């Protein structure tokens, strides 16, 4: 009845339920009405087509940043640098978007692939350092985040524009936004990027599960020494894994740059898209389909939360608590596993 696979599916599901329940208890303790609160959240995310569009808009980059983290984790690497890779991808896509005027069929793919390439490059640096010198990727990627943040700010201010805080809008030929979707969803910022994101989830599944290279990548993740002994090049696979992971992250940046905003503004801090990606990957158990579902949940919670203070007087911070609790329960999956197994044993 409970084989390993079902348990792996059950753990995130139970975590989400427990997280929401705990959120409800917290709301009760602080004198808010949890039914009203979650009702507002639901309406804020799916209440009408505008909110639905905004939810999808939020889900899109989460899918990609989640894929980036998940891909690296599957190959035994912890890519904390997704945030920085999102930044460079965002910048690359916008730069191509504003600098050229090309027919759409060339321009859009060019801008999107520039983002992926920039992200891959940003992943390449920690990858090569790890492969050649054994520098731990967590440390390098964290530092690369700051380098990305401050250098994109400087480039926005002094290279792309002349002292402005924000770039021009990308040319329509490089934009993922569509009037058709905007009209359908009352001017939400939903854009075609969602198709790219879902397609990329397929690609990740395909690479990891259906190709020899994917097998090697996973194998290096499981046990580098055994893989080395089996004749695989560990270093090469590490670099490749970081680059693919970075490319996913760069695409997440392109979603923001070409889809949601259409420009890049100098930022005072991180966007958190990359950091949320870690949570998304964790909840999605590092699988492609799991990441898509988890990103959907996170997008829903984030957008729905904005509706909670006005409708139900519940502060938006509560949703942050719920998300944190969900992650907590996933991370302490041992506890849930123990309960399930216990139940199973006694049920016999």
């Amino acid at each position: 009845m409970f084989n390993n696979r079902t348990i792996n599916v059950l753990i995130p599901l139970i975590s989400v339920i427990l997280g929401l329940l705990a959120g409800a208890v917290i709301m009760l303790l602080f004198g808010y009405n949890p039914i009203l609160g979650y009702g507002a959240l639901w309406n804020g995310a799916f209440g009408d087509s505008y909110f639905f569009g905004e939810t999808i808009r939020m889900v899109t980059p989460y899918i990609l940043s989640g894929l980036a983290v998940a891909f690296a984790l599957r190959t035994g690497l912890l890519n904390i640098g997704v945030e920085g890779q999102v930044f460079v991808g965002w910048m690359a896509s916008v730069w191509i978007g504003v600098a050229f005027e090309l027919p759409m069929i060339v321009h859009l793919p060019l801008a999107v692939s520039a983002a992926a390439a920039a992200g891959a490059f940003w992943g390449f640096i920690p990858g090569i350092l790890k492969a050649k010198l054994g520098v731990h990727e967590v440390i390098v990627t964290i530092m690369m985040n700051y380098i990305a943040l401050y250098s994109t700010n400087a480039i926005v201010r002094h290279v792309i524009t002349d002292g402005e805080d924000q770039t021009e809008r990308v040319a329509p030929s490089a934009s993922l936004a569509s009037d058709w979707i905007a009209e359908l969803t009352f001017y939400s910022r939903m854009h075609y990027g969602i198709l790219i994101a879902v397609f990329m989830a397929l690609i990740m599944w395909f690479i990891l599960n259906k190709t020899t290279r994917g097998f090697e990548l996973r194998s290096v993740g499981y046990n580098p020494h055994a893989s080395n002994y089996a004749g695989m090049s560990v270093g090469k696979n590490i670099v490749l894994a970081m680059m693919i992971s970075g490319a996913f992250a760069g695409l997440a940046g392109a979603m923001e740059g070409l889809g949601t905003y259409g420009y890049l503004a100098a930022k005072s801090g991180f966007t958190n898209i990359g950091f949320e990606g870690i949570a998304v990957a964790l909840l999605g158990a590092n699988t492609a389909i799991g990441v898509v579902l988890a990103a959907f949940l996170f997008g829903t919670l984030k957008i729905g939360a904005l509706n909670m203070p006005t409708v139900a007087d519940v502060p938006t911070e509560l949703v942050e608590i719920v998300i944190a609790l969900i992650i907590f329960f996933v991370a302490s999956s041992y506890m849930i596993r123990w309960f399930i197994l216990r139940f199973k044993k006694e049920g016999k």
Partner: protein
Amino acid sequence: MKSRRFLLILALLLSFGLVLAACGSSDEADDSGGDDGESEEGGEQSGEDFSVAMVTDVGGVDDKSFNQSSWEGLQAFGDENGLEEGEGYDYAQSDSEGDYTTNLSRLVRQDFNLIYGIGYLLQPALEEVAEQNPETNFGLVDSVAEGDNIVSITFKEHEGSFLAGVAAALKTETDKIGFIGGEDGDLIRKFESGYVAGAKSVNPDIEIDIKYAESFAAADKGKLIASNMYNNDIDVIYHASGATGNGVFAEAKDRKQNNSDENIWVIGVDRDQHEEGQIDGNNITLTSMVKRVDVAVNEVATLTMEGEFPGGEVMEYGLDDDAISIAKTNEDAMTEDIVSKVDEWKEKIANGEVEVPSTDEELEEFESSL
């Protein structure tokens, strides 16, 4: 063993019950949504058919500064006109840059008549949403936006900052003063230019250290920069950095706590930040460059309610209509001497004798003319 299993099942059942209760929520929420609708109609019947809302920037509605002041303005407007919070007036808080458009659009969809974007950071989002919703009126505080259904509210912060500079230059004992800005940009440059001009008008040789925290919401950075400045003998710091300034106050208060003889001061911004500087009978808030966002927000809301929405216009508030002023709450620190000097300069600005610079270029000109 048996009872244990029973307990487990009981616990599971209970949690299922809770889940089911939560699932049932959507209907009930719908019901209550209906109630809201009815009570809104009830409000309309009592003659009030006007509602106003604002979207904060990332500083949040309790930033003790700019956003909070705007919200106080809306609350005052609500009180004056018998509106209820949540229906007649409300705010939406933005946690990130991505929330601006979502919040603005959401308020439009909740049928607010006038929607304010607080802070120049909202300008692109506000212009976009205003264009999509020509029927709704919008107000942008602190920056100029284009659109027939947008009124732009700006302030002559450079004039107020000039007076803050005068006060700082008179108060300092080390002839070194500091300025901490939020995000670098045209707006905060206005504060900076005015402050520098004011200080140099009193003492042309004064040293002014200018730092930007690159954020309006990073109290930790504010604290760090302030700590560096105070260590370098700077004794008066003027901050124009929203919630980042809370860190400046925290640092100054820590120092005062450790050594009550140390003469260090902070000049507040936007609201009278006298309370922020209170520590054991001392107060380290020298003064504040008060910018009555609340008055402006209230005034424009009143105009709009009366059907005279100044769409497409730029409303500029300055020293002459008391929308910009220098707080004199800290009477121990703002000695009569300083106050009279400040008033003197204020007079000079009012009668046009002094043209306060508002950009870097104007400041250079101003300095060379000293």
